[in-house]
């Protein structure tokens, strides 16, 4: 690469002509190559949120229990007794498509650093994954690589991976999604932020050495893919979970002292973004001397070092005079430690190398002055086409088929590769509505879920986004937790296309509306745009990670049936909405109709009612009704408990059994308590209907033909994933 800035070089750095003109205006001169590189990453979509910032401002981010909203490394909520939960979800989509193992592994490592840099010990990981069609030639390789990458990193860190979600759809054939969420625990009075306040304070570099890996990762994540994208493999970073484990322990040890003023992980855009963001938040300047940066390779240039995305590194500002104490801790953990600069009062980011100033940029030029676009958008009319089905199909056969479809089958093949129980606090493992992790040494627990239904979002981005938030709310309520806050990971196509921008705007509006109605604020998040390959966008996928609090973990519900002879009651209203349902897609072979509408007031009422029963110790068996509708939910409860069920004839139509109406829960209670429950439901204006009872070893629907045995259901539910991964021929599902 030459040092002369030509229009070609500017374009290669992803800056438009107008943006480059603005750079020159802000600097009052031409930038040099190092400066151009710094602007390029800081003004990339990935770092600057230039297309979404104006819309993200409309999201509700506050509640009495929110201690830190968006803008820091992660969001923080108060969970009582001086405890805080810190969490965030982040994408690592582009790298994971190019190099699935390392892409996914470093995604896990990056989100963990975001959480422990704030003073929290990570206690749980979740993953929201989207892959292309199962029979696409790359899919199996990507599933295998991503899953082992997530496991390889998380297992070594000793943080349990407790759940997540997986979908397959052709729109992800050339652009998979790997969204990782980390939840950590801290004390409310020991939370660390990234504002580098004050002048003359030492800036220290800790962790791994800097290499040439990952240079321009943030820029890559801000562009569409084409056939040549696999040549970008060198921009994918390589993870070292062992070093990260040491970094975690060393950081927590240092955080137990009061030596730190500010700390931030070096994630996307590495040293550049960490130093610029810390100076920006602190209203200070930073001067860095690159000769002191621990380096893994020889002859690294300033450009290399400022743009490297080498993993497992942190930047911290210490109180003056505390360097030796900090160094002792990092040396004990056999990590690099170097004072590489100091804070200043100049408001500038000044970078020196070999005694010369190689970059000198006003900090606000990289943050506040970064471009913000009001991109034109076109909000499409939601689909409204009618849905016609063959009413005569066998219910049992359809159920058996659905249980073995890629989107509904058991994910055991995946989660058994994750250590789910390390740390000894995992109370509910993957497979339920939400994972439940105890707050160590207490009776409290956090419930965690990730949700979004991309096919709904495609049909109606606004209702689909509402649905994602509502389903997170429902999944947390279904285990008995009070939903407290969410993190959002907005995965969309190219925002420069008005129809995609329309999906983004509608999606953010939908999240906002649901979050406001459900008192479920957004406290952190991440945007991943340009998820397109050769001009084909992914389904809009605003993944929502939700966290809720359970005060007494002894009062909790799970999906498994627990007793023979329990009454099965359906909470919520059933209209039989088959538009965009799994049934329609898998059984009728059509992706049609509109997404199910979400009544947020009903969501709140129904959720509060179910949660109240669990908290009062009156309910231990609950399952939310979502993908696949009522009958697949019942099947999951039956498989979970090894107990069958008989549904009464009032549910026997296909729309009732497989429709995906929202706001619904299935509960099972002893028969003696049914009258009381129906009475209190009526009192609270909650629709509740007795629809069947548990017992036996079969699942049957009165008047709907032959029953399915639990053994058959389990076998078919469990078989798809391992067979798919072994590369066996799988018969078409319909």
């Amino acid at each position, binding site marked *: 690469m030459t040092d002369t800035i030509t229009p070609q070089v500017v374009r290669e750095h992803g800056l438009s002509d107008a943006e480059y003109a603005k750079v020159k205006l802000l600097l009052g001169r031409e930038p040099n190559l190092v400066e151009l590189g710094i602007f390029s990453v800081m003004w990339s979509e990935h770092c600057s949120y230039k297309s979404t910032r104006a819309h993200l401002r409309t999201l509700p981010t506050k509640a009495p229990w929110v201690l830190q909203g968006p803008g820091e490394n992660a969001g923080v909520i108060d969970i009582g007794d001086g405890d805080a939960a810190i969490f965030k979800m982040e994408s690592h989509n582009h790298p994971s498509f190019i190099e699935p193992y390392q892409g996914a592994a470093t995604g896990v490592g990056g989100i963990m650093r975001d959480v422990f840099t704030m003073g929290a010990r990570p206690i749980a990981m979740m993953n929201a994954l989207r892959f292309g069609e199962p029979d696409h030639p790359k899919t199996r390789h990507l599933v295998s690589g991503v899953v082992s990458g997530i496991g390889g990193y998380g297992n*070594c860190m000793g943080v349990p991976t407790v759940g997540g979600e997986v979908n397959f759809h052709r729109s992800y054939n050339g652009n998979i999604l790997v969204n990782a969420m980390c939840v950590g625990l801290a004390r409310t009075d020991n939370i660390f932020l990234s504002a580098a306040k004050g002048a003359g304070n030492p800036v220290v570099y800790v962790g791994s050495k800097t290499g040439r890996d990952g240079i321009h990762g943030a820029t890559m994540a801000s562009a569409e893919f084409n056939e040549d994208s696999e040549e970008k493999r060198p921009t994918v970073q390589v993870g070292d*979970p062992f070093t990260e484990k040491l970094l975690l322990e060393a950081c927590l040890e240092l955080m137990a002292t009061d030596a730190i003023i500010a700390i931030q992980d070096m994630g996307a855009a590495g040293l550049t973004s960490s130093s610029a963001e810390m100076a920006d938040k602190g209203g200070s300047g930073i001067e860095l001397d690159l000769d002191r940066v621990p380096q893994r390779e020889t002859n690294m240039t300033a450009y290399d070092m400022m743009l490297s995305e080498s993993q497992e590194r942190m930047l911290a500002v210490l109180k003056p005079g505390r360097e030796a104490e900090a160094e002792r801790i990092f040396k004990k953990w056999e990590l690099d430690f170097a004072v590489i600069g100091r804070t200043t009062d100049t408001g500038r980011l000044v970078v020196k190398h070999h005694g010369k100033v190689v970059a000198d940029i006003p900090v606000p030029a990289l943050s506040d002055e970064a471009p913000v676009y009001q991109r034109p958008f076109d909000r499409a009319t939601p689909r409204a086409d009618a849905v016609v089905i063959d009413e005569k199909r066998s219910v049992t056969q359809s159920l058996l088929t659905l249980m073995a479809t890629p989107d509904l089958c058991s994910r055991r093949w995946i989660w058994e590769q994750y250590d789910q129980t390390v740390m000894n606090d995992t109370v509910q493992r993957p497979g339920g509505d939400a994972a439940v992790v105890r707050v160590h040494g207490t009776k409290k627990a956090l419930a965690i879920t990730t949700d979004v239904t991309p096919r709904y979002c495609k049909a109606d981005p606004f209702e689909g986004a509402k649905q994602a938030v509502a389903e997170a709310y429902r999944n947390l309520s279904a285990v008995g937790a009070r939903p407290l806050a969410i993190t959002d990971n907005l995965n969309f196509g190219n925002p420069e296309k008005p129809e995609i921008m329309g999906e983004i705007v509608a999606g953010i509006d939908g999240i906002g509306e649901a979050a406001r109605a459900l008192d479920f604020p957004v406290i952190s998040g991440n945007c991943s745009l340009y998820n397109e390959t050769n001009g084909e966008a992914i389904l809009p996928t605003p993944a929502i990670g939700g966290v809720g609090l359970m005060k007494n973990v002894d009062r909790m519900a799970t999906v498994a049936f627990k007793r023979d002879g329990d009454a099965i009651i359906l909470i919520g209203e059933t209209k039989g909405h088959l538009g965009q349902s799994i049934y329609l897609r898998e059984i009728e072979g059509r992706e049609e109709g509109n997404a199910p509408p979400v009544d947020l007031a009903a969501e709140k009422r129904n959720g509060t009612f179910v949660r109240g029963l669990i908290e009062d110790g009156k309910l231990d068996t609950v399952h939310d009704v979502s993908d696949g509708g009522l009958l697949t939910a019942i099947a999951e409860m039956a498989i979970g408990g090894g107990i069958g069920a008989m549904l009464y004839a009032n549910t026997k139509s296909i729309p009732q059994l497989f429709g995906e109406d929202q706001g619904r829960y299935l509960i099972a209670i002893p028969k003696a308590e049914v009258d009381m429950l129906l009475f209190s439901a009526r009192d609270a204006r909650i629709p509740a209907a007795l629809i069947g009872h548990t017992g036996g070893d079969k699942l049957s629907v009165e008047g709907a033909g032959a029953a399915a045995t639990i053994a058959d259901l389990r076998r078919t539910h469990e078989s798809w994933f391992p067979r798919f991964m072994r590369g066996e021929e799988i018969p078409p599902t319909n």
Partner: protein
Amino acid sequence: MKSAVVVFPGSNCDRDAATALEQLTGQKPHMAWHQDTTLPDVDLIVLPGGFAYGDYLRCGAMAAQSPIMRDVKKKADEGTAVLGICNGFQVLTETGLLPGALIRNADLKFVCRSVALEVEETQSVFTRAYNKGERVLFPVAHGEGNYVADEETLDRLEQEGRVAFRYAPGDNPNGSARNIAGILSEKRNVLGLMPHPERVCDPLLGGTDGAALFKSLIETLS
């Protein structure tokens, strides 16, 4: 019963072992750093699970060379009870305190799930609170738990009653020779096992089948 848990860089079940010990004995164990050269006078030494030194060489190979391991070996030779769980078992085979080796799982994948074990030997400080042949459910969580040794060694382990735990038939998660899940040293004071007893000592976490292992130790060593 006084106990110590050794912490290597990369250990990640040290806290779990300590929590289980504290809950069951009422005493906090001593946490020993890998660079310490001597352990305090204790009745039980635990080598916990995890990825010592990242397991970037053979699992447990680097940890086996840690300064602390010289004293662990010495105390084991003198008769102190030593319990190696998962990565701890790998460290014990690498130090030669137990025979054989642990290699990649037969299907080459990390596996985390509950497995059924049969308690084969109750004549040890670790297993006397179990009944011979008792079935217990312990979780496993490892990528390299496939126990191998030459036929002669395997025969000898069986003849001397040193196979403490076996995976129940049909539930071997890693391809381990003769379904071996855990073995004892010649003097029966060292136990290495791949499954995690410390993760099943609390009914809320899916069972208490592991508590009897610690109960055995407490009854014998207190």
